[in-house]
């Protein structure tokens, strides 16, 4: 029993991280149809800014560094939209995808050129690794924080989307952007808001990714975003609820395979995960939470 609870907690914290990132991808996709593969670099920027602040000033209080990291992520996300993605806003999806790949390569190599290819260590507070006994299982502080932060962030996002005008505009834009513009809402503002929210989620996820690894390097964002991308598609790309479900589902799937696969073939875990993901996509191309599209609907 204790073991089961332990693993469920593991799945929740891994899944929570995927859910944050999947949501960040989905919110941008739903508004402007961009598959943002440069999202991993937003994570890297958050990490490097925290590293730079620490290296220059010597401040190693997590309370100071964390907000700085999140602000940096929001800033770079908005900046990338302005500089790179606005020119290709109305282009086909493949153009946006390639632009995102290009941005990703540029930012990555910017760090390689100016900092180093090798990883740089960032101070992580010791108390993150403390274990708390919660009766049925022992849980690390970081896991607890991660799951809580994910829950709070999701709640906050739901409030913004449901209770504010800009949230309403974003939800409407996800359905029909032309209509939103026709009723007089500033397109640039809605898109900037979507990128800001997306950046915030990346910043939050970045903090936990870095807290686990203890180091930053130019390529740190790649794998998490790849997983998040799969999670978002699994949930139904563009569906915000779907991204969250997909994230937690993928987290659970990984933990599940980690447990059931015998050690001799545990290296194949990712292969199993991706086979299952493919099966689900073939079974439900619109994703777990997506709405079924008929031929001839918009976007087909």
């Amino acid at each position, binding site marked *: 029993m204790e073991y089961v609870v332990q693993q469920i907690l593991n799945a929740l914290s891994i899944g929570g991280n995927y859910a944050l990132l999947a949501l960040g991808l989905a919110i941008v996709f739903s508004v402007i149809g961009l598959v943002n593969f440069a999202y991993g670099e937003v994570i890297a920027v958050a990490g490097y800014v925290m590293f730079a602040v620490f290296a220059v000033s010597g401040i190693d209080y997590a309370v100071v560094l964390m907000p700085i990291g999140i602000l940096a992520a929001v800033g770079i996300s908005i900046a990338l939209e302005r500089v790179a993605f606005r020119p*290709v806003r109305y282009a086909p*999806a*493949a*153009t946006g995808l*390639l632009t995102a*790949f290009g*941005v990703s390569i540029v930012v990555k190599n910017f760090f390689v*050129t100016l900092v180093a290819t090798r990883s740089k260590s960032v101070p992580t507070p010791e108390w993150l690794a403390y274990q708390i006994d919660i009766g049925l299982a022992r849980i690390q502080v970081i896991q607890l924080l991660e799951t809580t932060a994910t829950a709070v962030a999701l709640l906050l996002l739901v409030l913004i989307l449901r209770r504010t005008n800009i949230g309403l505009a974003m939800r409407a834009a996800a359905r029909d952007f032309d209509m939103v513009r026709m009723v007089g809402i500033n397109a640039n503002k809605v898109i900037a808001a979507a990128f800001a929210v997306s950046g915030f989620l990346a910043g939050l996820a970045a903090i936990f990714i870095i807290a686990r690894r203890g180091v930053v390097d130019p390529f740190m964002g790649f794998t998490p975003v790849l997983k998040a991308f799969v999670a978002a598609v699994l949930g139904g790309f563009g569906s915000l609820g779907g991204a969250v479900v997909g994230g937690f589902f993928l987290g659970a799937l990984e933990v599940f395979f980690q447990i059931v696969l015998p050690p001799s073939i545990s290296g194949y875990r*990712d292969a199993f995960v991706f086979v299952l993901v493919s099966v689900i*996509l073939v079974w439900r191309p619109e994703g777990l939470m997506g709405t079924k599209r008929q031929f001839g609907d918009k976007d087909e």
Partner: protein
Amino acid sequence: MTGMQRTFKGAALTALLPIAIALLVIALGDGAQVRILSVFLINLILVIGLQMFMGNTSIVNLGHVSFMGIAGYAAAILTIPASIKQTIIPEAPFGLAAFQMGPIEAGIMAIILAMLVALIVGVVVTRESGISATILTLALLVIVHTVLVNWVELTRGMRALYGVPMKANAWLLLGCAVLVIFLGRWFRDSPLGVQLRASGESRIAAESAGVNVRLVRLIAWVLSSGVVALGGVLYVYLIGSVSPKSFYFDTTLLTLAMLILGGMHSISGAVIGVIVVTAGFEIMRYFESSPVIFGVKFPEFLGLTGFFLGLIIVLSMALRPKGVVGTDEIDESWERRRQDQSERTSAAASRSHA
């Protein structure tokens, strides 16, 4: 001029530039430059292979490099002398450790194997359209890479397999590349290619006109994988060794960038894309290695080639989203411009008569 003739002339025109470059480098270049040329020709084959599916169906394919990997590994394992295999992969399944064959037979076997895998995978991939299909190709890339890394008895895992006979030279690669240019152009212009491109623009319209979209996509997928597999086999015969990291995201993104930069809907676009990116890369590599220009020693800039590659993608997407060449083949756009011009002059002539 019949359609077939036009296709042939167009392909010949497209092949002209790579042939000229290759002859120039082989005649004047040193060993290192011939090596760059060889990699360039292999990239050309890979990118045209990618174009045959992606350019005609407009489905972004992230999984093509897996067929390069399957064929590359198959060719390597079949051709490495048994004596070397006894030391590096003594426990290879199916008695492969004691088995050995010539490079040509092995290459053909490897390509057939890759196409068989493509056929099975293709039945699934071609069911989907758009982003779901792209994710399936991405899943394929990850799955094949995971298997290559983990099937240690057969592939030696992350470590390289070496001892492959280095049978590929620049002439062979040039011959194959030119052949592939003709194949790609013929496929694009064939009735099948036209049906494919129609289904890429609007699946529903193509289906209502009687196109069996899944079947034509499957054929394109298998053919495209076969060409990419050829690239993989030649790559292994050129390098003489093989390791899983050559068949993952770096190669995927590089070839994808080449294709989209040039213009993914045409063979001329694929060719121009490979030329531009390779040239840019080599120039940047020169600056990266702290060169001395006019007596000034420049500092070393690691990451400059990558920076350049990214920048060129972003800029070309912003300025020319359809690629340098655009949607049509070069000869097609020239033909159109000439027709426009002659119409304009004849119109002007008739006006002056009146």
